[in-house]
């Protein structure tokens, strides 16, 4: 600390500081930021870098019980890619992701636009209502939806039987349509969360642009398509990426809804569920690690695509603005 407090040498000073003092100050200046960063770097090293390295090593090993492992090269990855159950899990997870992104995000945007309309009363109340399911733990969400989708006593079947007299109250939603149940449960829980992102983005859309478009005769759809949507695209693509990552990691909800099983004909098996099954139920941590890396690679590709698309749309918007500017 004392080196920072030392007075700087003025140009043309008759008594220049000795070279050794200057070098020491430089050294301190270069070391000090690292000292400040050290706690964070240490945490990252211990809890991110080392586990990542460990997981990489583990994915090339076969484990079988405590203290037993052997190097198997890329055999775990070959096993994963030729494992029909992995592809079943991948397909299920993909369907869930598609359902979550394609249903949840448009709905979240719709609600955000509704709540962004001027003159709507009770906005705060509705925001709270729509956002509050996020505050409910996944375990409770699973319990609520487990009761709702019960065979004979569940509200869904009772309601449908009330509307359609021929409806079979014994219909097994969780056996036949587990992915639909998962998508609905996730929609209920996270729609409000995504709505808040869109709401923040919508509030940052310059009003002048919308007003100018209106004066130019643009209808609602054209204003949405050419003004609002481009303005919220960066936030939108970020929300899409977050949803994809979150959806690919789904585990707790199907695990709890299906009470630890993977459902009829593995319809509720997700990738992370399969990772758990192989790693923690069968004790093959190497194989589980290979599954984990496979998900990581898929998600990295998704993130890369998102960045490419975002960059593309930025360039395209930038080009349009430049061309528009030139026309003026």
């Amino acid at each position: 600390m004392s080196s920072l407090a030392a007075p700087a040498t003025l140009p043309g000073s008759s008594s220049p500081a000795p070279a050794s003092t200057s070098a020491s100050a430089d050294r301190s200046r270069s070391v000090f930021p690292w000292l400040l960063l050290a706690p964070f770097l240490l945490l990252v090293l211990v809890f991110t870098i080392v586990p990542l390295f460990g997981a990489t090593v583990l994915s090339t090993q076969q484990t079988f019980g405590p203290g037993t492992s052997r190097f198997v090269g890329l055999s775990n990855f070959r096993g994963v890619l030729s494992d029909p159950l992995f592809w079943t899990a991948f397909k299920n997870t993909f369907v869930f992701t598609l359902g979550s992104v394609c249903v949840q995000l448009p709905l979240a945007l719709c609600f955000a636009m509704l709540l962004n309309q001027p003159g709507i009363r009770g906005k705060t109340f509705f925001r709270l209502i729509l956002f509050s399911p996020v505050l409910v733990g996944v375990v409770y969400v699973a319990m609520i939806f487990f009761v709702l989708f019960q065979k004979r006593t569940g509200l869904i079947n009772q309601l449908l039987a009330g509307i359609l007299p021929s409806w079979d109250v014994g219909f097994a939603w969780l056996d036949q349509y587990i992915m639909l149940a998962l998508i609905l449960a996730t929609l209920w829980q996270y729609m409000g969360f995504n709505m808040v992102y869109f709401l923040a983005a919508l509030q940052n859309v310059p009003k002048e642009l919308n007003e100018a478009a209106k004066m130019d005769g643009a209808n609602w759809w054209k204003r949405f398509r050419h003004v609002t949507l481009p303005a919220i695209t960066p936030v939108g693509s970020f929300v899409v990426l977050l949803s994809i990552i979150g959806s690919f990691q789904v585990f707790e909800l199907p695990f709890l809804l299906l009470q630890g099983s993977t459902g009829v004909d593995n319809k509720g098996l997700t990738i992370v569920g399969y990772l758990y099954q192989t790693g923690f139920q069968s004790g093959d941590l190497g194989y589980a690690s290979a599954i984990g890396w496979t998900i990581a690679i898929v998600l990295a590709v998704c993130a890369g695509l998102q960045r490419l698309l975002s960059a593309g749309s930025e360039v395209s918007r930038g080009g349009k603005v430049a061309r528009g500017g030139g026309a003026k």
Partner: protein
Amino acid sequence: MPAPKRESVTMWTFARMHADLYRPEIEAWNDEQTDSSRRVELSLIGVQAMEQRMMSAFLAGLPSADLIEAERRNAARAFAGPLESVGFLDLTPYVERDGIMNRVNAASFKPWTKDGRIFGLPHDVHPMMLAYRADIVEAAGIDVSKIETWDDFVRVMRPLLFKENGERRTDRYLLNIWETQIDLIEAMLLQGGGGVIDASGVPVIDNEANARVISQIALWTSGAEPIAAEVSFWDATGHQLMRDGFVIATFAPDWMCNYWRKEVPQLSGTMKLMPLPAWDKGGRRTSVWGGTMLGIPRTAKDPEKLWQIAKHLYLSRDLAHKLYERGDIVTPVSEFWQDDIYDKPDPFFMGQPKGRMYINLAPQVPDRFSSPFGAIALARTQSAVSQLCKVARDTKATNIDQLMPKAREFLAAAQEDAMRHVNRNVFFADSQKAAEVTP
């Protein structure tokens, strides 16, 4: 600050009833000990949490509790790998030295045995019977003594599926079993002479006995005239359906009696027990569901002292009686089976001598084997059952012969899939080769 040095013995259990039972015994044991290192501290830990702690300690080679009471599925995970990597201490020398094998029901050791070595002291036998709504059955004038096989069961009980005007009831089924209840499916496979794991720990899913059992289950649950339905054992909805008589009969290992006594006391005086109907005349009249062992981790210090505590808890007559009185669980110590306590009439089951009925079936309890591939084998078998149920629904099947070819096909696929995991396991392949070489 360094952690204080632990002197007493720590023990983990996952079941509240077990903890309630052991606490007074442990207090009495502790009072007798002059050496503080022989005092026992008991912790009740959730089953999942205990498994995670146990496996983390085993994988890291770190100490856990000194005594671990583990449920069958959890314990099986610790049996993966070569013998020297099993997290529990090999108790075979102690069991042989103290002549425990002669005192305890042989089948009760099987789930805790790997390659002929015993890693746990058995807590129970868990024979299974069928509990039925005697109030409904007797009111209909049905005589259950005529039931010997599952075919008899369906034939004799069938009138209960219909109203007086001949219309089929939608609010009553004969049996509580469904396609995703893998514990029950496994119990039925074992009763039928099948099972999913053999003595060497290898999946043996694809066989005639299993095909027959799963075909029957598919026919019962999903055929043209289903007789079975789902009534969850563990939630209020299921309890209400039980009270409503939605299913006439349900599977009842001994521990289930205690669960009903506590969770659905309204069933008291409405139910009776009967041995499971056999798959063939003269066949096995029981099966098994659940199981617990007491093990000593390999890292524990002073195994001899821990072995003495384990014996005190699991092999004492007094505790065996309390286990039955408070937990309805029959001890695996066969020398206590003649005790009068098991002949007491149980008012919950309309005065039946429940303990004696379970003990009479105990010697028939099928062997079952632990394997790290057990979870995979069961999961694949369950998939085969689901596929077969779909076929039964789609084809409106009326007899098991229609389903048998498909059952074999689905079981063969399940076997192939499970074996893919076994075959890619280099350690398992090594141990199998070693077993072939060693006579």
